[in-house]
């Protein structure tokens, strides 16, 4: 007898169920880490306890009966108290789910409890996936699906083995995991595993196709609960920044946002992603003053497209930004923009004067938006500031000519609206040094004199002040300000200590304001790397940066100035520097870049997959198929032409000989295959068959026996006498020992011949009557 493939016993199936259940429990519980749910206690208990009980199931039997009796009332009581105390239903339900999940994982389970565990785990995984829309959801749901299917299969097999009798096999808790996995490997039929894997992949592919083919629906982002459970901002990009907070952000290597550029050649050499403008100096940092806040109108009604105050409408380059949750509600932009598109209706607050835009609240999940006509040169014209503070004769012909040549009706409306609001509140404080003591002001004035005085204008002073600062200080993330009395920035400027970007930017602001130049601090991100995997720019939290914008009276605009070593003090103006192209950017080719590439793919093709993308994909597929068909037709036509030409050529001896040899080889090959090749192949596979059930000879014999049976039914006899011998030989192939087999190919050929003869005889009989 051949050794049949071993089968898992009832005890082994029970152990497998226990293992899979524990695995599902732990992994699904860990998904709560993605959410801002206060469940650390539950996770801290589950994380060590469940793996321990999973690996040592005998301890689950050791739990006293009292524990099981009290568990449910206790869990319900904790849930009720949680709900009553926190008044937040969903987080309380998640915590309840975690408690039940933990209990189910450590207590002995039958079929019903296994199904409960799957449902509890599914709840957590789905809630996490829906509310975070993160790429990790894909991994979670795939893992969960595989593990849950495995568990369900084990439950089904276990039930079938037990004959529908509920309860666990005695002694299953005594488990040797290495032995179990060895048995599992021995019992696993590779073909079944491959089939299951193929089916699983098929389901995934089918789901993907359905996703691509289904019509798009616009779902508004109105889930009130998502704010309750998703991660809040972990960065310092808010209206009040203390020194060191931007530096703290820069310690994090996570991705802040990714950028798809329609025309990678148009990527500028200097990428400064502005997010916030801060004007008021507090002595400990910078904040947005009340006056500046007044110039920032509240969010408008929801719309998918928002117009901006950008001037570069002729610029056809579009930037699609996939903005990660947990950064800020302020959107990273390089300057003014023409239009800003969202994937779904979205409220947006924007200041045309400051060229910044913000969502009503910090996004709970990734936000994708496409920007058209974005200014990237670092020069921001500001008509309002120029009119009210610099150019007293706003209505003068010069001012009208200087500013109105690019003004649009929309900009004019914004400007009027902003002017109305500004008059109600305080003014922006671009020149104030409110937090600096008198003594420190003297020092500042002295340093301004040392730098060379106010100079010809803001940019001129910025160049000299920047050079002065860089000559005295080097850049370091680990910078410390010297101890002592007075203003922090003044103390640092007075020292030779290295500093980070906030100290350089803050110093520039204080020096420029002391010299009489309106200056403001800007926070955001600088730079980014080109990710060839995804073909996009990746900007990380470590690119967080602070710099200044100084007023340029001559041009009526704010000019970026970055005094931090490594940055350009004033923006480049040459065409080459303005448009360096992505190819000249730093390339990121590491594993993290590949993961980021997957994430961008997820955002690009799944999360932000709108109707336009759908149509593009369908058109692209159609074009590709058409191209392939045309190519195939051309290839066939070429081959036929070549064959015809070859046939037309004169037939000499070598050609005739070669052709005959090739034909002979083909005929010989077919003959060999039919005569012995096929039987050898079958015999080889038969010898390798893991069990009789998979033996190809036995299966083939079974097919021929079925045909004989059909023939017998048709003739009305048990077995036609002509076929008795053949049936006997086929029965031997099907049920007999291998040693007694006649050559299978001969038996099958005989069966085929006999059946054909019988068929012919059956057809000729009626004609003969």
């Amino acid at each position: 007898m051949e050794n049949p493939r071993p089968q898992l016993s009832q005890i082994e199936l029970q152990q497998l169920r226990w293992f899979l259940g524990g695995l599902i429990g732990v992994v699904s519980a860990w998904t709560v880490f993605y959410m801002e749910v206060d469940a650390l206690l539950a996770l801290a208990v589950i994380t060590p306890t469940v793996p321990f009980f999973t690996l040592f199931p005998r301890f689950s039997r050791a739990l006293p009966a009292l524990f099981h009796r009290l568990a449910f009332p206790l869990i319900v009581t904790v849930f009720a108290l949680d709900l009553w105390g926190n008044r937040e239903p969903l987080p309380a339900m998640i915590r309840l789910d975690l408690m039940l999940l933990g209990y189910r994982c450590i207590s002995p389970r039958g079929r019903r409890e296994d199904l409960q565990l799957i449902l509890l785990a599914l709840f957590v995984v789905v809630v996490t996936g829906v509310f975070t829309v993160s790429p990790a959801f894909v991994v979670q749901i795939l893992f969960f699906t595989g593990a849950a299917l495995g568990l369900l299969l084990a439950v089904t097999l276990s039930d079938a083995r037990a004959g529908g009798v509920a309860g666990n096999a005695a002694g299953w808790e005594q488990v040797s995991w290495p032995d179990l996995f060895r048995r599992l490997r021995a019992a696993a039929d590779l073909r079944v595993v491959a089939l299951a894997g193929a089916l699983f992949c098929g389901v995934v592919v089918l789901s993907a196709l359905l996703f691509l083919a289904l019509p798009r629906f616009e779902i508004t982002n109105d889930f009130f609960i998502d704010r309750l459970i998703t991660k809040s901002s972990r960065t310092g990009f808010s209206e009040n920044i203390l020194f060191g907070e931007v530096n703290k952000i820069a310690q994090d290597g996570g991705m802040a946002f990714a950028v798809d550029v329609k025309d990678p050649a148009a990527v500028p050499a200097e990428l400064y992603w502005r997010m916030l403008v801060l004007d008021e100096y507090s002595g400990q940092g910078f904040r947005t003053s009340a006056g500046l806040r007044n110039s920032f109108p509240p969010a408008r009604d929801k719309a998918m497209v928002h117009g901006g105050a950008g001037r570069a409408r002729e610029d056809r380059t579009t930037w699609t930004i996939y903005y990660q949750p947990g950064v800020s509600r302020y959107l990273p932009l390089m300057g003014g923009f023409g239009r800003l598109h969202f994937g779904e209706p979205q409220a947006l607050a924007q200041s045309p004067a400051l060229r910044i835009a913000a969502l009503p609240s910090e996004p709970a999940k990734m936000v994708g938006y496409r920007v058209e006509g974005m200014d990237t040169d670092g020069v921001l014209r500001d008509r309002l500031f120029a009119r009210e503070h610099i150019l007293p004769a706003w209505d003068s012909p010069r001012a009208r000519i200087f500013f109105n040549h690019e003004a649009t009706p929309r900009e004019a409306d914004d400007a009027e609206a902003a002017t109305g609001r500004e008059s109600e509140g305080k003014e922006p404080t671009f020149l104030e040094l409110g937090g600096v003591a008198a003594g420190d002001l003297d020092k500042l004035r002295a340093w301004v004199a040392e730098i060379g005085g106010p100079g010809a204008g803001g940019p001129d002073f910025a160049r000299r002040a920047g050079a002065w600062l860089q000559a005295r200080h080097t850049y370091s993330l680990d910078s410390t300000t010297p101890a002592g009395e007075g203003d922090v920035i003044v103390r640092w400027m007075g020292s030779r200590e290295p500093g980070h970007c906030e100290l350089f930017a803050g110093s520039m602001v204080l020096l420029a304001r002391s010299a009489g130049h309106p200056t403001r601090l800007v926070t955001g991100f600088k730079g980014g790397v080109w990710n060839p995997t995804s073909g996009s720019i990746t900007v990380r939290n470590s690119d967080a940066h602070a710099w200044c914008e100084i007023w340029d009276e001559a041009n009526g605009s704010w000019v970026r100035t970055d005094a931090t070593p490594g940055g350009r003090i004033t923006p480049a103006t040459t065409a080459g520097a303005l448009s360096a192209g992505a190819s000249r950017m730093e390339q990121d080719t590491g594993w993290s870049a590949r993961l980021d590439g997957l994430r961008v793919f997820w955002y690009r093709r799944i999360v932000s997959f709108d109707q336009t993308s759908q149509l593009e994909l369908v058109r692209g597929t159609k074009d590709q198929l058409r191209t392939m068909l045309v190519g195939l037709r051309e290839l066939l036509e070429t081959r036929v032409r070549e064959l015809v030409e070859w046939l037309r050529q004169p037939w000499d001896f070598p050609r005739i000989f070669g052709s005959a040899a090739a034909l002979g080889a083909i005929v010989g090959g077919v003959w060999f295959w039919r005569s012995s090749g096929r039987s050898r192949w079958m015999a080889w596979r038969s010898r390798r068959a893991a069990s009789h059930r998979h033996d190809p000879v036995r299966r083939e014999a079974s097919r021929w026996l079925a045909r004989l049976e059909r023939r017998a039914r048709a003739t009305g006899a048990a077995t036609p006498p002509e076929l008795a011998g053949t049936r006997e030989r086929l029965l031997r192939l099907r049920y007999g020992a291998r040693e007694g087999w006649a050559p299978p190919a001969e038996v099958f050929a005989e069966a085929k011949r006999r059946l054909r003869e019988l068929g012919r005889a059956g057809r000729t009989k009626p004609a003969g009557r």
Partner: protein
Amino acid sequence: MVLPDPMSDFFSATQVSAARESLHKIRESMRGTIKGKDTVLDQVLTALVAGGHVLIEDLPGVGKTTLAYALARSMDCVFSRIQFTSDLLPSDVTGVAIYDETIKEFVFKKGPVFANIVLADEINRATPKTQSSLLEVMDRGKVTVDGQAHAVGAPFMVFATQNPVDYEGTFPLPESQMDRFLMRLHMGYPQAADELEILRSTRTGYDAIAMEPVVTRSDILQLQQLAAHVFIEDTVLDYILRIVGATRTEADFRAGVSVRGGLALKHAVQARSLLEGRDFVVPEDVAALAVPVLAHRLTLVRPVSDGMEERRLVVATLKRIIAAVPPPV
């Protein structure tokens, strides 16, 4: 007859045809005495080759004793008949140690069970204690008296009979005892033509049966060894397993077929294959023998007062199960 290589499940066509020839001889020999009962003869031969015992349940006077006797005579075997009554003692069956004055020690005097073919007539008339005296010998072919084992004849086969109608003053066989029988058979009345033939004969009792042995005892022992090597393919074993498993989950049965029952079916189908001249088992063998081999091992959840009716219900349910279990293809 040459036995197959013990390391191989395959044996030659010569061995198969020799075995078939031997069994054919016995069948033909018995046919001369037992008229029109070919199916019963085949089942008895199957039980003989499988090394099992037979319980024949039928009315008196249908040829049960004659059947056993004819089998014994055909094989040149020692035949013994025990008439079971309520006062029969175990020692009356197995034998007893008696004190021999001449040699001054106890000497074991063999009982009627020391034969090759033992007819336990109306076995259910004896007390359970006496019935159980057959347990060891049916299972192991040995009798242990005073701590000493005594082997009975080889081959050894018990033909037990019982009357399914007259139950007054009887002791139904316990399940453990029923499980020892490989098959339960029914003789039934013969066809009119066969019965006419019987009436024409001048013979009065089985003692008057004159038969010449057609095979030797050693032939039978070799056949039994050969049957154990008949090849059973995995899917056929699985078929047996599925039928046995289905009896265990059937709601009408109090308990399913035991492991011994499954093994008995396997041995029986191997023997039947040999009888059919095959060295491998086909699913038809299983379907053909499932009822005679398994039915007497099953009891209904709801007891039926009439024994015949209970047997009929058990067989009907078992046939329904067999029809519902798909054979391998």
